[in-house]
């Protein structure tokens, strides 16, 4: 099916998220939509999927204009969407998930057999090897994604939209996905592939449309050079390398030994994790999301109570300390999800800067909050960290991702640090802020503080790390130097033994 978007415009208040975007996806073609976070790719796809209504412009399927009031209409018209965050019910089987929403029934009774048959039929056609009776929660991420694809295909999707599909995959799983995409395209399905990763676009796309600030800035063939694509995407030459001198590791500061953690059902989250970080050194943990990195940082910060093993900072045992004690021991913590764990969106910038210091210290005066100190501190932090805002009384929820992250960083770096733990320090952060945040982290290292970075972006790990630890299934499978080749790191991240 041929999909055409014609002059789609979508506004949110004064912000124009999509500005007269036009796009033609030919049948059997893989059309990559390339752009930075916040460029308007997802908005465009939500318009296509009927989640948003376009303010102007029209959608044509096989040259006939269509209107979608909701995802139901879009699906009925043959558009399938695989969201970045899977829309699957973990405790249901594959077949149950696939049939959800259009359950086959006979005499009002669910027809599970026909659902199973359907799953098998589709997965055989593309060599997916999916067991219809497996519970989704037991499947690896890559397989869950294939379930999403089967779900879309089972509804006769002729146009398949994949929104950042590789964000959760290992390099190897990514390769498999690309094979699948090609197969689907050869079978006549049109594919819209949304991503910000240049390498993947070049590997699989037939046509590339680059979007920046809500506008189409150009179409390009995949043979175009990476540099050109990147400059189209960001509007300037990108430089992700951080200017940093060689590390001067000093005394051993953080020693983690045999750290093990189980969840309530007894599943292993951390499996005998051991590593050390010296003063003035950055250890970056690489790995695909969900391989224990989150739990590792949470265990260090004291959010898990039932850890086994030892976490020692300058000899002080922290594995069973409360969060309060860990913070008091001089640990700065940038949580992975700043909106969930790092900030209170409805608080002002000034209030967020004192979140962890409301009990005693300069932010308090007797039983009261020391409002004057708080506001002066905030004004200074805003200046130092270049937070783009109207002032300390602005609600944090109104800031952009990058500025929110700067608030978190300003708070955590303003204490006397003996260790900095930063998880996904630049996730969802604009390019300008990324450079700034990276520079600050390196500055912390250079002041002699040990730094632990967790990142699922290999580029970030490579840019910051003095040493790289790779995590897979809750284990640290290797600690390597940052000049290890990408391919080798990819293998390690996928759990391929040495």
């Amino acid at each position, binding site marked *: 099916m041929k999909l055409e978007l014609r002059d789609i415009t979508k506004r949110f208040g004064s912000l124009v998220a999509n500005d007269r975007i036009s796009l033609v996806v030919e049948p059997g073609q893989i059309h990559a939509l390339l752009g930075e976070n916040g460029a308007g790719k997802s908005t465009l796809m939500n318009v296509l999927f009927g989640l948003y209504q376009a303010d102007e412009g029209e959608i044509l399927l096989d040259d006939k204009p269509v209107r979608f009031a909701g995802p139901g209409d879009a699906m009925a018209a043959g558009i399938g969407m695989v969201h970045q965050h899977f829309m699957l019910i973990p405790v249901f089987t594959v077949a149950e998930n696939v049939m959800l929403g259009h359950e086959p029934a006979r005499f009002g009774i669910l027809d599970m057999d026909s659902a199973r048959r359907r799953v098998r039929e589709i997965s055989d056609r593309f060599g997916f090897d999916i067991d219809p009776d497996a519970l989704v929660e037991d499947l690896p991420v890559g397989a869950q994604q294939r379930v999403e694809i089967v779900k879309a295909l089972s509804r006769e999707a002729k146009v398949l939209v994949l929104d950042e599909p590789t964000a959760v995959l290992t390099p190897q799983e990514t390769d498999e996905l690309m094979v699948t995409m090609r197969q689907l395209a050869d079978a006549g399905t049109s594919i819209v592939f949304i991503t910000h990763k240049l390498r993947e676009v070049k590997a699989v796309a037939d046509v590339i449309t680059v979007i920046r600030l809500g506008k189409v800035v150009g179409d390009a063939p995949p043979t175009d050079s990476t540099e050109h694509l990147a400059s189209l995407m960001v509007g*300037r030459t990108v430089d992700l390398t951080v200017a940093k001198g060689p590390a001067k590791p000093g005394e051993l500061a953080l020693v983690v030994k045999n750290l093990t953690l189980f969840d309530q059902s007894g599943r292993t989250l951390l499996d005998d994790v051991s590593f050390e970080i010296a003063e003035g050194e950055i250890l970056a943990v690489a790995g695909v999301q969900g391989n224990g990195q989150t739990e590792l940082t949470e265990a260090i910060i004291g959010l898990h109570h039932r850890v086994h093993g030892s976490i020692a900072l300058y000899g002080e045992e922290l594995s069973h300390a409360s969060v309060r004690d860990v913070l008091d021991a001089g640990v700065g913590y940038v949580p992975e999800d700043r909106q969930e764990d790092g900030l209170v969106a409805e608080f002002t910038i000034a209030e967020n800067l004192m979140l962890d210091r409301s009990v005693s210290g300069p932010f308090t005066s007797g039983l009261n*909050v020391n409002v004057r100190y708080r506001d002066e501190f905030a004004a200074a932090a805003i200046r130092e960290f270049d937070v783009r805002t109207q002032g300390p009384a602005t609600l944090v929820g109104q800031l952009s*991702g990058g500025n929110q992250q700067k608030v978190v960083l300003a708070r955590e770096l303003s204490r006397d640090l003996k260790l900095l733990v930063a998880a996904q320090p630049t996730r969802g952060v604009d390019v300008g802020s990324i450079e700034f945040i990276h520079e600050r982290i390196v500055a912390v290292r250079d002041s002699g503080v040990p730094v632990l970075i967790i990142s699922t972006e290999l580029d970030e790990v490579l840019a910051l790390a003095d040493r790289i630890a790779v995590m897979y299934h809750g284990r640290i499978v290797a600690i390597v130097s940052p000049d290890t080749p990408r391919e080798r790191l990819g293998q390690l991240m996928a759990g391929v033994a040495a």
Partner: protein
Amino acid sequence: MSTTTTERPRPRASQVLRDIASGSPLRIFFSFVLAFAAGSLLIIFTNEAVLDSLGYFFARPTDFFGAAGQATADAYAAMFRGSIYNYRADSFESAIRPLTESLRFAGPLIAAGLGIALTFRVGLFNIGGTGQLLMGAIFAAWASFQLHLPYGLHLIVAILFGFVGAAFWAGIVGFLKARTGAHEVIVTIMLNYIAVSLVTYLMRTPVLHDMDSGNNPTTIPPDVTAQLPKILGENFNLHLGFILALIAVVVYWWLMERSTLGFRLRMVGLNPDAARTAGINVNVVFVLAMVLSGLFVGLAGVNQALGRSGSFSPSIDSGIGFDAITVALLGGSRAGGVLLAGLLFGAMKAAGPAMQLEDVAPEVLSVVQALIVLFIAAPPLVRAIFRFLPEPREPEQLTTQQKPELEKKELEA
């Protein structure tokens, strides 16, 4: 996260609560308009003159509209006379009496409303006002007639007893939630039942009951030394309890808006995960919040138990425990708002008898009160009726502020 906007925002329970609690004045005003409009319909169609005129509606429709207008005007005029100023009275003293009565009724509503409001701000839903108020009332009552202390001291001791009783009862909830994860809504509702039964039982035993005064469950009247003194002389019933409620408003304001403890309470209410990550023991805050809530509700119990010279029965709560939820919602859980909402509900309570004299069923007032709450608690409903009201602001709205930054980036290019 801003990395993906494909997920539609799910309204979390706390967000819904926030939407309700953050009531914009304009929306609240229109909630009133709607409630009073619906109330007049009830007044009209329960009024005999109006119903009579309906019998010959098609012959003389003006009669119907005249009667309807008359009934509504009479009823709301009676409401005014009953709650604020009785312009028909022969002396200023009795003309102003309704206002003092409104204030007297408002005292416990304000105090209990503050208690419930506090838990809202911490993200808890305390439905246990009834039980806490009862426990506060009987603790205070017990001290008021079982202890015999000098003037001044006796009152203070009795008030403190009331605080302890209610705070203890509320503290159980916080403790169970922190220790076992039990949901506060269920626990508070159950504790309401327990409190009512417990108090009724004790009011048949010598602990609270004068065994010579019949079998109905009642308390012994408080000693004169433990009664809240009347503040406008013997002709008015308004007592010190109202002043204490006003002081509670100031304390609540200071606690929530200025103190470091209030900062932590609000933090836990808005984002418990961030609070935990900032080193705050959220469970301790839950217990503290319930105890503090109990202290405020306890003041309402003290008002009820000591603001009288006679005995009382288990119905002493007279709906305040639940009305307090309404007052807290209506007041947006803020000190000033709760004060105003408490005054309004006090006035409504005071207006009841006067409206009854105008042949308005007292239930109509309850319906109007309930409708106000209904409209307040359903912001989307009011917004759907009055379409010009603004949508609630999304706390995670990044896009509008991102733009200048993006433009700047473009300039750099």
